[in-house]
């Protein structure tokens, strides 16, 4: 039951997302996607907050100028100029441009949130990392090579919203993979460990050494 709940939470669209991984990552025969893991929505919200504050900035300028003019009388002409400027039609162009740039930046942040993903399959973990456009790194490591999986939930908000950090250590040169700000790190760790257990059990049954 718990496994079903976790899987259903992490994989809302198994068939559709499997197409993505099949196209770009060419899964092995018999390999199935188990979960797509992304950063928690709260972390996305935190990344979008600066744009929201900057978008609200024009609404703060006039009240601030008014407040400053009340305290410092010499500021009154500047306030009058600001009021005139905001009343002009040209200001609409600048404000529209300002908000459009912020909107573009916020949409790019949202896009990059979707492009960065961990895909857990029955055989391996595939890490798709894209810090910016046209800079994409796809790496994968087999579950049979995983030595240690550590999850960490820190802080009040992390505990409340259940997001944190997961660290997967593997044998070999590519020693560790980690992802910060993911949702349900403990559930994910349990899921990875369960898949590892499954891999070892299957390979023990078929007599294969490491499943590669």
């Amino acid at each position, binding site marked *: 039951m718990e496994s079903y709940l976790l899987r259903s939470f992490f994989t809302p*669209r198994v068939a*559709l*997302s499997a*197409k*993505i991984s099949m196209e*770009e990552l060419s899964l092995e025969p018999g390999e199935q996607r188990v979960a797509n893991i992304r950063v928690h929505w709260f972390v996305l919200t935190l990344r979008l907050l600066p744009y929201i504050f900057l978008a609200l900035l024009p609404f703060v300028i006039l009240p601030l100028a008014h407040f400053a003019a009340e305290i410092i009388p010499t500021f009154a002409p500047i306030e009058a100029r600001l009021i005139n400027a905001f009343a*002009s*039609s*040209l*200001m*609409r*162009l*600048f*404000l*529209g*441009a300002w*908000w*459009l*740039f912020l*909107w*573009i930046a916020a*949409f*790019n942040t*949202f*896009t990059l949130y*979707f*492009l960065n993903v961990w895909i857990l399959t029955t055989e391996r973990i595939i890490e*798709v990392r894209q810090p910016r*456009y046209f800079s*994409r790194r796809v790496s994968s490591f087999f579950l049979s090579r995983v030595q240690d999986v550590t999850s960490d939930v820190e802080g009040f908000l992390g505990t409340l919203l259940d997001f944190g950090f997961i660290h997967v250590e593997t044998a070999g040169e590519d020693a560790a993979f980690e992802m910060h700000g993911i949702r349900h790190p403990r559930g994910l760790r349990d899921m990875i460990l369960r898949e590892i257990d499954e891999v070892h059990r299957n390979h023990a049954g078929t007599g294969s050494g490491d499943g590669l």
Partner: protein
Amino acid sequence: MIRSLEPFATASSSVPQLHIPLHLPISFLAERAAPILFWLILGVWIISSCIAAYHWLRYHRYSIVILPAFIVYGIVSFALILYAASGFIG
């Protein structure tokens, strides 16, 4: 004696005055610079949207998020572009 001491010298008419405009007239901005700025912004928006669309279609074409995301992006962008354009049209 004291009266003859002037704290500041007044500007003499014999000294040539430079009349440099310290700010660009609004009419100049509205007529010349505003359309250029608007097309520049529109160009940036088109390029940025094409790059984002390329990444969505290349890597997430089957995602159910793509359509609502682009519809919202398009509507909000269109509204903001119209708002910006209203600054110098009409």
